[in-house]
């Protein structure tokens, strides 16, 4: 592998990892703070991608579609928490799994009714179409750098809000003792609603900015959900830092797993099995630290 290819693959893996982090952080936030396992998280990612495709097509601009899509997904999140999710806080995880599984079926079918079952592409916005040359014949698309930058900015923003602001303080307190926060006169029900909506919006936002590089297709929600689970299990449930480290690790392993095995093409079974590498990593982490790299001992 030449240095140029290595650099391109490295950038790709970081971009993929950061995008995974964006989706997984919503999942781990909802679980860490509210104690709810949300199987429908991948469906929100899928909805985001379809919103980007449909809104950008109708408004003629990706940049207008982005804020509108975020607003819609926040509204969706608030409505879902208000209608359904808040009924499940005291129930076993089993029912949370079941209810959110039902939501997946609903969203997938609504997607089929509204937007059909075709695969779509979203054009990269005009301003970011350029590529940065790395060597004579290799260059790197600006849009992928843009994704990485946005994900890093969101990660920083989340860190700042949760660790440094009053709202973050309430959220952290609500995660450790809901009733105590409530009796201090804070409407914790509303805080939870906002947290859920933020989680949904994070997944949808990730779907929107990913849409121009990965195509928009029906099964995309399920795929991303499973990888996010792997991220959360490796990083530790509820740990945003863990999610970041695990997502980057998976980005590296997945990307280089494919490339390196293509190099020794004599074994033609290997590239097909490279998809397994992330699961093997998960198995290893389970043997070593069942609670995840940054998870607290249960």
């Amino acid at each position, binding site marked *: 592998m030449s240095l140029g290819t290595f650099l391109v693959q490295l950038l790709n893996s970081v971009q993929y990892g950061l995008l995974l982090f964006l989706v997984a952080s919503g999942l781990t936030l909802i679980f860490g703070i509210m104690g709810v396992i949300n199987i429908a998280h991948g469906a929100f990612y899928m909805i985001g991608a379809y919103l980007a495709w449909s809104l950008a097509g109708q408004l003629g601009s990706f940049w207008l579609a982005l804020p509108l899509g975020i607003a819609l997904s926040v509204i969706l999140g608030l409505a879902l928490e208000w209608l359904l999710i808040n009924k499940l806080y005291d*129930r076993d995880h089993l029912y949370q799994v*079941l209810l959110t599984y039902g939501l997946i*079926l609903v969203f997938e079918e609504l997607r089929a*009714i509204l937007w059909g079952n075709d695969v779509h592409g979203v054009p990269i916005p005009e301003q970011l179409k350029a590529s940065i040359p790395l060597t004579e014949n290799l260059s790197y698309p600006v849009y992928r750098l843009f994704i990485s930058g946005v994900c890093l900015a969101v990660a920083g923003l989340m860190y700042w809000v949760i660790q440094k602001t009053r709202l973050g303080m309430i959220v952290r307190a609500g995660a450790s003792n809901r009733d105590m926060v409530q009796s201090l006169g804070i409407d914790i029900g509303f805080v939870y609603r906002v947290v859920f909506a933020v989680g949904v919006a994070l997944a949808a936002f990730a779907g929107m900015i990913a849409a121009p590089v990965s195509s928009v297709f029906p099964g995309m929600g399920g795929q991303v959900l*499973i990888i996010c*689970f792997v991220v959360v299990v490796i990083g530790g*449930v509820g740990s945003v830092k863990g999610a970041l480290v695990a997502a980057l690790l998976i980005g590296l392993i997945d990307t280089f797993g494919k490339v390196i095995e293509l190099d020794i093409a004599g074994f033609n079974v290997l590239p097909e*099995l490279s998809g397994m590498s992330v699961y093997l990593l998960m198995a290893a982490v*389970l043997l070593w630290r069942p609670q995840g790299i940054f998870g607290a001992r249960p």
Partner: protein
Amino acid sequence: MSRRLGWIAGLVALAALVALPFLADKFYVQLFTKILIMAIFAMSLDLLIGYTGLVSFGHAAFYGVAAYTLALVTPQYEAASMWTSLLLSMGVAALLAFLIGLLVLRTSGIYFIMVTLAFAQMVYFVFHDTKLAGGSDGIFIYVRPVLEVFGWKPFDLEQFRDLYFVVLGCAVGVFLLLRMMLGSLFGRVIAGVRVNEHRMRSLGYPTFRYKLVCFTLAGAIAGLAGWLSAVQFGVVNPDFLAWHLSGSVIMMVILGGMGTLVGPMIGAAAMMLAEIGFQEVTEHWQLLMGGFIVLVALLLPKGLLGLLAPKPEGKGAARG
């Protein structure tokens, strides 16, 4: 519902199921074959969810792997032996469950749900992405397995009625086996594990091993269901391993009433009949199914059986 009434209801239901192939036409016999296969599958998951408190979201892996095993050991245009293929299928499913169990049982609660799903999905990708067994198209089983005892063939699985009776026999057998097991000391121990694992461990029970036995056994029984299903459909594809199947079977267990064995069977029937009903109404039946699942999760935590017996017996899965 009193105990005696329950037994009577069960015997009446069994009599009706035995009579069915003589009264109903092919469509219904095949439909009930499917329902009974799902009932076996759901009972195996109930052993985990309802009795041991392990919410597995990857149960389709064992079902699918057993189905694939049958497809792979069946020669192209000849029949496989029923005993060999069935034992192999269940053995492979049990072995996979044992290996996955060794890893996933190190976790609990929400981790367990996610890890079982992730490993099941890994199995899905192995069959979907490699050419090991026909990739995403799957493989056909042109000739169904044959049971031969010294040249005597008691039934012919190519005949839909014979297959129905074999499946019914398996369902009854699995039900009795699990009932006997759960009524024994073993059943008491795993109930203890569900309610308070720490206490069981401090009483000296190796709880990990008990859970591993349950996980492996549930995998083997799921494998039986997968084998039967492969025999019925004559084709195996990655849908046998898909997480939608794992989700549906959880739904069956809860819809009927978990921790009861009878409940999951009722749930399997209700779910499959509901599916057919929804398909009659609209081509977008998944929308109705999704809404139905949401409502069951919200309103029917004890399932349909819970409607009959309003007094709970504390049989819910343990939290966390």
